[in-house]
C-alpha cells in the first residue's frame, strides 16, 4: 500500500507573529518557516507503518510556493520516498485555501491510488482544521480525524480519536483519510546522512493547472488585526493578598 502525506510549510511555531501595519495580513518576510508540527507527526506515522511492513511507499506532497521544496526535503530526510511539489503561488502570503488544496490532493490520490492519506489535523498558521475532512468528502472516503492511536487491521483501521469528552475509538475501512493529533507519536529528527540521501530522492514539480484546479480564494481577507491586549496586572505578595483581591477587587470568588 502507498501512503500519501500532505505537508504544509508554515511559520515556525516558536515565532511570535506580527500583524502588518496596513492590516493586510501578518508579516511573513524573513521569518523562520518550518514543517507544520502536525504534519511531522503524520510523516513519522507513515514511516512507522513502513517500518512495520504495512506500507510500501510514502509520497509527500506540498501545495504552495517554490520554497515548500525545503519542507518536502525535510520529509524525505525523515524517511519519505518521493515528493510532489505543487507550485500554486509565488507569493508566500497567498495561502491556498483548504478546499483548493483538497481538490489538488484528490487529483493526486486519483493518480497515485494510495490506501491511506495521513495528514495533520490543523495547520498552525490558519488553524482551519479542514483539509483532511474536505479531501475525504471529495473522495467519498471515511475520515478518522484527531487520531492519537492508529492500528491497521487488513482492509480497515482502528483509530482512537481525541474528542471533547475524552477518547472515541472508531473503525474505518481503507482507503481513508486520517488526520493526526499531537499525542500520536514523537517525530524523529533527520540524521545528517539521511539529509544527504534525501537530496537524491525524486521530486516532481506540478501546478494546479496540471490537475485542472482553480485556486482562486472563496474567502477574502478584509483585514487582519492584533487581538485586544490585556491590561497589565499586578504581582501580589502572598496567598492571603491574592484571595483578598479576588474577593473584593475582582469579585470572582
Amino acid at each position: 500500500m502507498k501512503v500519501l502525506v500532505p505537508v504544509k510549510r508554515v511559520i515556525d511555531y516558536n515565532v511570535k507573529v506580527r500583524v502588518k501595519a496596513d492590516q493586510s495580513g501578518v508579516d511573513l518576510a524573513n521569518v523562520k518557516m518550518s514543517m507544520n508540527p502536525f504534519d511531522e507527526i503524520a510523516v513519522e506515522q507513515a514511516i512507522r507503518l513502513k517500518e512495520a511492513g504495512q506500507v510500501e511507499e510514502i509520497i509527500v506532497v506540498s501545495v504552495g510556493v517554490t520554497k515548500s521544496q525545503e519542507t518536502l526535503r525535510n520529509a524525505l530526510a525523515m524517511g519519505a520516498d518521493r515528493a510532489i511539489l505543487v507550485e500554486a503561488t509565488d507569493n508566500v502570503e497567498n495561502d491556498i485555501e483548504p478546499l483548493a488544496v483538497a481538490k489538488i490532493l484528490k487529483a493526486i490520490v486519483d493518480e497515485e491510488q494510495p490506501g491511506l492519506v495521513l495528514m495533520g489535523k490543523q495547520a498552525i498558521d490558519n488553524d482551519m482544521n479542514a483539509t483532511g475532512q474536505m479531501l475525504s468528502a471529495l473522495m467519498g472516503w471515511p475520515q478518522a480525524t484527531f487520531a492519537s492511536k492508529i492500528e491497521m487491521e487488513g482492509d480497515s483501521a482502528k483509530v482512537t480519536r481525541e474528542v471533547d469528552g475524552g477518547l472515541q475509538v472508531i473503525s474505518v475501512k481503507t482507503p481513508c483519510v486520517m488526520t493526526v493529533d499531537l499525542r500520536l507519536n514523537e517525530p524523529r529528527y533527520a540524521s545528517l546522512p539521511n539529509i544527504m540521501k534525501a537530496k537524491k530522492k525524486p521530486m516532481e514539480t506540478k501546478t494546479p493547472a496540471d490537475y485542472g484546479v482553480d485556486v482562486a480564494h472563496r474567502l477574502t481577507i478584509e483585514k487582519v488585526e492584533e487581538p485586544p491586549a490585556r491590561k497589565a496586572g499586578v504581582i501580589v505578595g502572598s496567598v492571603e493578598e491574592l484571595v483578598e483581591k479576588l474577593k473584593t477587587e475582582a469579585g470572582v470568588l
Partner: protein
Amino acid sequence: MAVLLLAEHDNETLNDATAKTVTAAQAMGGDIHILCAGSDCGAVAAQAAKLDGVAKVLCAKDAAYGHDLAEPLADLIISLAGDYDHIVAPATTNGKNVIPRVAALLDCMVISDISAVHGPDTFERPIYAGNAMATVKSADPKKCITVRGASFDAAGEGGSAAVEEIGAVANPGLSEWVEDKVVESDRPELTSAKRIISGGRGMGSKENFEIIEKVADKIGAAVGASRAAVDSGYAPNDYQVGQTGKVVAPELYIAVGISGAIQHLAGMKDSKVIVAINKDEEAPIFQVADYGLVADLFDAVPKLDAAL
C-alpha cells in the same frame, strides 16, 4: 434566508455550546432551525425548542447518528442543505469533524472557529493561535461555519419552537463506532465552567494534580491542563487548554505551574480574570495575568486551599 444549526448533545442533554451558537446565528439573519441528530434525542430536541430565537427543531432519530460519525451526519445535513444559506455548528470536536466535510460536498470553503459575526457573509476568526484576528468575507452561496463558544453568550430559554421529526438518510457505512473512553466527573465541563484551575508541567505528577483538584472542588471549578501536563500523563487529554485543545473564557482562570507558551495562551487569554502561580518571575504567563503570585506551587496551592 435561514440558518441550519447542528446541535451538540450526548442524546440526553443539550450542550450549552449549542445555545452560544444560536446567539452567533442570530447575527447572520433569517430563521434558525436546529438539527438534533442522534440515536434517541427526543429529550434533546425538547431542550433545543426552548432556546430563544429558534424557529423550528428538526429531530432525526436513528442508530446511525448515535456516535457522531462524520459520514452519515454529513449526508443528513446535505439532504437538508437546499433550504439554507448558513450551515453552522459549535466548534466542538464534533462540529470540526463534520462541517468541513459538508462544506466540501457543497463545493464551499468552510469558515472555522468564528469569534464574531459582522454580517451574513463577513466573519472574524482568530489565526496564528489567536495572535491575529482575521476578518473574512465569503463569496460562497452557502456559508459553512463553526462557532467558537467562548466568544458568544448563550441564548436564553424562553422559547417554544415546534419539533418536527425527520427521517434518516441512507448510511454510507464507511465507518463504525467501537467505544468511547470517557472519564465521568462531577466537576463542571471546561468549556462552560465559570471558574477553571489548570495545572502544568510544574505539577510534577498525576498524584500532585490532586492538590489543584481539591481547590477546584472547593470553588466549583473545572480542572484544566497544559499540553506538557497531558503529554506527561498528569491529566487526561480532554483537560488540555490551548490552540489544539479547548478554548475557554471563564470568569476566573488560575494557571498553576504553567509557563504561558503562546499555544496555551491561545486557549485562555480571553478569560475575564487570570491568576498565575509560578516560581519563575520571568514566566510569560505573568504578562497576561491580572494577579501573579511568584511562589512554589507546593507551598502556595495548599495555602490557597486553606484560605478559601
